């Protein structure tokens, strides 16, 4: 192996390695773009009635999901009837507002698809200045609470939080606090609810807290949102179930819809009958998922992604990016295996054409046209045509054959026959000429062997460029082309034997 080529190859391998590494580690791309994509569908249906008669304006407000670290809302649809629908940020929340005259409609619906990509979690942001829930409880209640939590003062924040949360279940640890205090505290728990009591304690130890309404992501239908308390421990947000005092584990995915005390859904000028939330798992096409994520990103590499070019051109690039795999294959088959083919890249062009005709039809049409062309070529051999007009004659014949095939296809409804126009006609014509010359010079056997070799290479190449995960991988990571260039550099330096030479020089090998 020659040194410079080796180094260049290593360099070519490093480019995609570092780019992909960056994308995976920093931009949260999946390492395997084909790994399944988790997505959730949220449907909210609001049934309501108007207070007055027709012509009266109403307004309905509802907390909606929002794109944030670890989750992306990729699609929102609403069925609002005659109502106007707007989404507006309000504090920490994303509020959907329906307003206007409902006329006939008594039901609204809203759908969102939410993409979860936990890898994309960035370092959680500490809460900024915001309004925490007001301190509740009167002075004597506050004093009692203070007395109860004095004992936790020496604990570190995460433990302190856990211990305080456990009081919701009545667990106070040893030594147990004063009997009377505990009795009074359970009164308070009754008065303000478990949530209220916990909030009093948490505010007293100066934890930033948020009251959250939303859903634990699980396939379910609900008429009430889940409620939990989010607490900032100085490192991250912890989420407490107020009734049990348990902390949600990291593996549980929460979908917050409303932070604060505002009811999740409210109406003015009418009455809510029922609100129903439906959560369901969804499978998203890989292409969609990548597109949605990258499309919404402002990162430099995402801006320069192939997903950014118009749809109709994307289709072309999906295939174009796989041609290098095809030519790599050809290089391997020719230089390491020793396959005979007509022309070097003819099989790649055939493979591309097979995409529109399908493999069996493609091979059949290919064989048919070459065979007919061969007979024609034999026929006109006596006419002594000059080379260029002769090849042009063959091209014209090939196109004539295409036309006939397409007409037959149209008559009998065979779509594959009509797609024939995409076969590389110039290559086909050259193949006919070469096939003829090869038969004349080296005999039919050799010609058929070469034809079979070409067909096999075309079929293998076709099968490879049809692999959807491979298309996706190259589309998401086009820098892989550098890796192909690296492989080609290595292959170009291969000066060892070809597999076919084992047979060819068998006599010589046996002798030693």
């Amino acid at each position: 192996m020659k040194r410079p080529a080796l180094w260049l190859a290593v360099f070519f391998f490093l480019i995609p390695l570092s780019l992909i590494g960056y994308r995976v580690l920093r931009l949260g791309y999946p390492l395997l773009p084909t790994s399944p994509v988790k997505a959730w569908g949220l449907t909210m249906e609001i049934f309501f009635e108007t207070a007055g008669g027709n012509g009266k304006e109403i307004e309905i407000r509802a907390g909606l999901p929002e794109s944030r670290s670890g989750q992306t809302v990729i699609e929102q649809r609403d069925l609002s009837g005659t109502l106007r629908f707007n989404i507006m940020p309000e504090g920490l929340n994303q509020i959907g507002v329906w307003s206007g005259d409902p006329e006939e409609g008594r039901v609204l619906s809203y759908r969102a698809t939410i993409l979860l990509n936990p890898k994309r979690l960035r370092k959680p942001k500490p809460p900024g200045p915001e309004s925490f829930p007001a301190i509740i409880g009167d002075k004597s209640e506050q004093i009692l609470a203070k007395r109860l939590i004095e004992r936790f003062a020496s604990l570190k924040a995460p433990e302190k939080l856990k211990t305080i949360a456990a009081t919701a279940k009545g667990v106070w640890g040893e030594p147990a606090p004063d009997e009377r205090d505990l009795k009074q505290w359970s009164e308070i728990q009754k008065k303000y609810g478990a949530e209220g009591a916990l909030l009093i304690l948490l505010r007293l130890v100066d934890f930033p807290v948020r009251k959250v309404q939303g859903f634990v992501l699980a396939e379910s239908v609900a008429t009430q949102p889940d409620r939990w308390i989010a607490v900032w421990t100085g490192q991250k947000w912890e989420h407490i179930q107020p009734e049990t005092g348990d902390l949600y584990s990291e593996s549980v995915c929460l979908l917050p819809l409303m932070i604060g005390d505002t009811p999740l859904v409210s109406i003015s000028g009418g009455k809510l009958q029922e609100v129903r939330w439906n959560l369901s798992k969804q499978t998203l096409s890989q292409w969609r998922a990548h597109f949605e994520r990258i499309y919404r990103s402002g990162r430099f590499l995402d801006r320069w992604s192939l997903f950014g070019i118009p749809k109709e051109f994307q289709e072309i690039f999906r295939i174009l990016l796989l041609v290098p795999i095809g030519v790599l294959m050809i290089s391997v088959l020719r230089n390491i295996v020793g396959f005979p083919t007509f022309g070097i890249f003819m099989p790649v062009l055939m493979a591309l054409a097979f995409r529109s005709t399908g493999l069996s039809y493609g091979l059949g049409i290919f064989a048919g046209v070459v065979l007919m062309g061969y007979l024609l070529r034999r026929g006109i051999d006596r006419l002594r045509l000059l080379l260029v007009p002769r090849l042009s004659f063959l091209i014209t014949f090939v196109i004539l054959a295409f036309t006939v095939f397409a007409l037959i296809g149209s008559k009998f409804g065979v779509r594959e026959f009509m797609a024939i126009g995409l076969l590389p006609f110039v290559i086909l014509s050259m193949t006919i000429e070469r096939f003829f010359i090869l038969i004349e010079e080296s005999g039919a056997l050799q010609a058929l062997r070469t034809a079979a070799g070409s067909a096999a290479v075309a079929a293998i190449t076709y099968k490879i460029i049809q692999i959807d995960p491979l298309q996706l991988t190259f589309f998401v990571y086009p820098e892989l082309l550098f890796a192909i260039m690296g492989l080609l550099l290595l292959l170009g330096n291969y000066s060892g034997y070809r597999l076919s030479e084992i047979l060819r020089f068998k006599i010589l090998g046996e002798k030693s």
Partner: protein
Amino acid sequence: MILRQFLSLRKAGVLGMNRRNAEYIMRFNRRSSFPLVDDKLLTKQLSLKHGIPTPPLYHVVSHHGGIAGFERALADRQEFVLKPARGGGGSGIILITDRRDGRFITQSGKMISKDDIHYHISDILSGIYSLEGLEDKAVIEGLIHPDQVFGKVTYEGVPDVRIIVYRGVPAMAMVRLPTRQSDGKANLHRGAVGVGIDIGRGKTLDGVRRSGGIMHHPDTGELLRDIEVPFWEKMLLMAAQSTDMTGLGYLGVDLVIDEKDGPLLLELNARPGLQIQIANRKGLLERLEMIDRAPKEIFISLEKRIAWAIQNFAEPNS
């Protein structure tokens, strides 16, 4: 399994296609020198300048307008060879042994009309036989009457001697004998027989046809081995000289032996095939590496290189 096969080829010193291309052709044959051997007219001119004998040149047709005048140029010559200047693998070559009533008779006895010949020349000019499909010239030169040394092991046609010359040192040689299947042509891929030649003694070894070894000519049934090649040292000299005149370090030299004129240079090849190894039952790589290890002073003179090759490449037991 495959690796073991590869290793046994390597141990036998077999030269593979990839190594030939990468380490010999690309390294020792400068691209700019290729036209000298790809175009037989240039080769002929060069040989003349260096005093290497070649078949006599009668005429060249270089454009379609010249086709009609070709018979006038032939005058009353009854036999000639028509070939493309840039053809490869023996394609497009017609041997004419006689003319009768304005028609031509080929070596295999076929009658060809004047129109057919014109058509063929036109094909040659269009580049149908040329290596890159470029426009070409048609060369008309003297027909060879082969020395009868290979007469018993030849079916029609003209046998030729191929010598591989590496860095000016003859490395391996064979004679190619036409068969019925090869239609009188001396090209191995058409079914001609290749027979190795012992460089040291100038005697033939065993033969190969397609990929199988043979001892007798398939059409005449005569033994292939131990035929003494006449003018052997002169042929080695002509081959080695070809390297000096072209500057190509890895070269295939094709020679024919005419019964009157002796050895003539037919053509040169910058990408000679590997089949010669089978004809010699010997790996070429081994020889090339031996030449690389040869003492430097032999490369100073033509005679020293030949002497070294004769001494080192003699078969031990023939």
